[in-house]
């Protein structure tokens, strides 16, 4: 029970978790002031050669991929009829919603004039830009996730009529959410299609959009497993019997799905290499790094998931989900930072400034704090007593 005390809120204010997050938040606020008074140059190592750093590579690309649990879970339950995982929808949708919300917040640090973020929609639209598609889908999907999440908040607030309305939208929202996710998860990869001369050929591929989309499913499934094992450590007192009884089934089911999708992802990655006829590049240092990603973070988790499911080894599946999540992070970093601008001499390459990392940490921490605030108050891990078996 000791671990629960670390993160679960309680009467004591100075828990280790609160102290650490307090320090991070303070640091984040200080960097925020510097960013908005002295400019990007003061807090980042970005340069004219490297206009995108970890605020795009991590906060946007990784953030959006890891928030894919929302659409993956609600599609599984509402569209594919896996009713037995119904209890997992709310936590997944909540994480998805917060994920996207904090992606947008992170973007306000990165773009030069954040208050102009609506400009593509209200001033003039650069519809030839993949970034336009990303912006349109992310903002629409954020709205969808907000609506999908709203029943929980409305139950908490006791607004029955509004809640009923929101619940009736479930199927439409789910379908809409899957479309939007397909589009923007893939167009995040497509963003890099414009720069074949800058991205290493092992990572550059006309299939980039497909790679990003398929791997987002892996990310979504793995994140649900990963979060569910964390939540059942820290928030088990909030869970109802359906949640506790079903979570092992969930881990097995999602682990199996993740294994299958990873196998498919591995196959298309290999097809990508052969389509570009890039086999000879595998013998270069970049090639070895590519193999590390492909074998260590795609093939290995695929195998481990399969073994875990076969042996019904929940512990193995949980650890594998962490490996798969790290694999997604590694892939997004490779595409946007490591293999990008690979032709430049090392003194013109990018390495993040500590303050950039600080802001990313700050935003993740804020996300966790808001998550904790919500799950300790709203019916996320349990069914609200007033609305039994209704959704």
């Amino acid at each position, binding site marked *: 029970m000791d671990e629960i005390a670390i993160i679960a809120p309680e009467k004591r204010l100075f828990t280790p978790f609160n102290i650490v997050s307090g320090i991070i938040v303070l640091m984040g606020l200080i960097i925020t002031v510097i960013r908005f008074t002295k400019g990007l140059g003061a807090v980042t190592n*970005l340069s004219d050669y490297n206009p995108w750093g970890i605020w795009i590579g991590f906060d946007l690309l990784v953030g959006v991929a890891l928030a894919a649990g929302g659409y993956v879970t609600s599609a599984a339950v509402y569209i594919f009829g896996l009713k037995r995982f119904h209890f997992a929808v709310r936590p997944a949708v909540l994480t998805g919603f917060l994920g996207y919300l904090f992606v947008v917040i992170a973007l306000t640090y990165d773009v030069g004039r954040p208050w102009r973020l609506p400009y593509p929609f209200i001033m003039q639209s650069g519809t*030839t*830009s993949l970034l336009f598609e990303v912006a349109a889908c992310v903002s629409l999907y954020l709205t969808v996730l907000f609506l999908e999440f709203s029943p929980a908040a409305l139950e908490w607030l006791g607004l029955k009529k509004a809640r009923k309305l929101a619940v009736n939208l479930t199927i439409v929202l789910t379908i809409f959410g899957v479309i939007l996710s397909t589009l923007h998860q*893939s167009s995040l990869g497509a963003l890099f299609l414009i720069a074949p001369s800058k991205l290493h050929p092992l990572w550059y591929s006309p299939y980039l959009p497909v790679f990003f989309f398929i791997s987002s499913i892996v990310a979504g499934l793995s994140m649900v497993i990963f979060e569910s094992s964390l939540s059942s450590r820290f928030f088990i007192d909030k869970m109802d019997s359906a949640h506790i009884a079903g979570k092992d089934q969930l881990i097995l089911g999602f682990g199996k799905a993740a294994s299958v999708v990873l196998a498919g992802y591995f196959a298309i990655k290999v097809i990508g290499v052969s389509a570009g006829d890039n086999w000879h590049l595998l013998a270069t240092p970049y090639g070895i790094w590519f193999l590390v990603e492909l074998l260590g973070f795609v093939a290995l988790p695929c195998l481990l998931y399969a073994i875990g499911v076969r042996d019904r080894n929940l512990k193995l599946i949980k650890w594998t989900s962490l490996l798969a999540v790290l694999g997604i992070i590694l892939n997004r970093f490779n595409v946007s930072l490591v293999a990008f601008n690979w032709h430049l001499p090392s003194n013109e390459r990018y390495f993040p400034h500590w303050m950039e990392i600080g802001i990313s940490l700050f935003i993740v921490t804020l996300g966790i704090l808001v998550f904790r605030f919500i799950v300790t108050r709203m019916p996320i891990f349990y069914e609200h007593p007033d609305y039994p078996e209704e959704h």
Partner: protein
Amino acid sequence: MSISRRKFLGLIGSAGVGTAVSNSVFAASNKHFTGYPESFAVLHDSVRCVGCRQCEEACNKVNDLPEPDQPFSDASVLDKKRRTTAKAYTVVNRHDRAKDGIAPVFNKTQCNHCLEPACASACFVKAFKKTKTGAVTYDASVCVGCRYCMMACPFDIPAYEYDNALSPKVVKCTMCQPRILEGKLPGCVESCPREALVFGKRDDLIKIARNRIARYPKNYVDHIYGEHEMGGTSWMYLSGVAFQKIGMREDLGIKPAPELTSGALSVVPMVAALWPVLLTGVYAITKRKEKIENEEKNQAVNSAIKATKAVAELKIGEALAKAEKEQEEIVEKAVKSAVDNAVKANTEEAA
């Protein structure tokens, strides 16, 4: 054969540029586009360039840029490789070719004003536009500062005001568009003492370049850089050594940037149209499966009930029959004993 200022003014007059060009702008699109036939361009002949950096100085002046850290006369600047920055729209680099047994070659870098610019195709607010004059212009009043244009530019040209906290701009050579519209030459072209820079209609410049290559085949590589690179550019180059050796990429290919992403974009309507159909279909199947399952369940329950009923009826029937039989037996017995008793009584009486 280069175009002098006077000639240029005549050219402007004949083309009616001042009015015809006006301010009309054309956005990037995914359709095939081969450039504006009447558009202007600049040819940089690195064989003629002596690295005096007067173009840099002129550019600095006509664009009101801040003083450079080192004066333009300071040749030591050339010791380091430089790129365009927020304070310098153009830079001249020296490429030592001692290995090839020749004197250093100087090359000027600035925006190439691509015919189908990657920057314009990447920008999600259309801040960049390819104009009819040939210049690719930038409109800071709509720019969000996402810097995707910088990611996209294959020539690494756009720079950014990283030190500007609240109103940073993307910065690049403007091809002196304001001056062109006034009928003047770009600042750098006007200032070049060696006529290493020539301004004119793009078609004419290609002819001039071909001519130079044909007349001095020993001095020139047989290639006009920018004629086809990335779909063609409005700034073109001649060189005496391989372009790669003077810091220019030769692996960019001739595919215009918008073509790189048009495939991915064309998938959007497909996904938007097909996914809902597919998903609703899957949903319907799931629902149907549930319905059938429910029906089957109901049926099973019904027949089970029926079966039990039948069994029960049967049992009841049996029981009834048994009971009847028992009843009969009881009655029979009773009758029999009554008869027996009567018979007994009769015989006793008779006795």
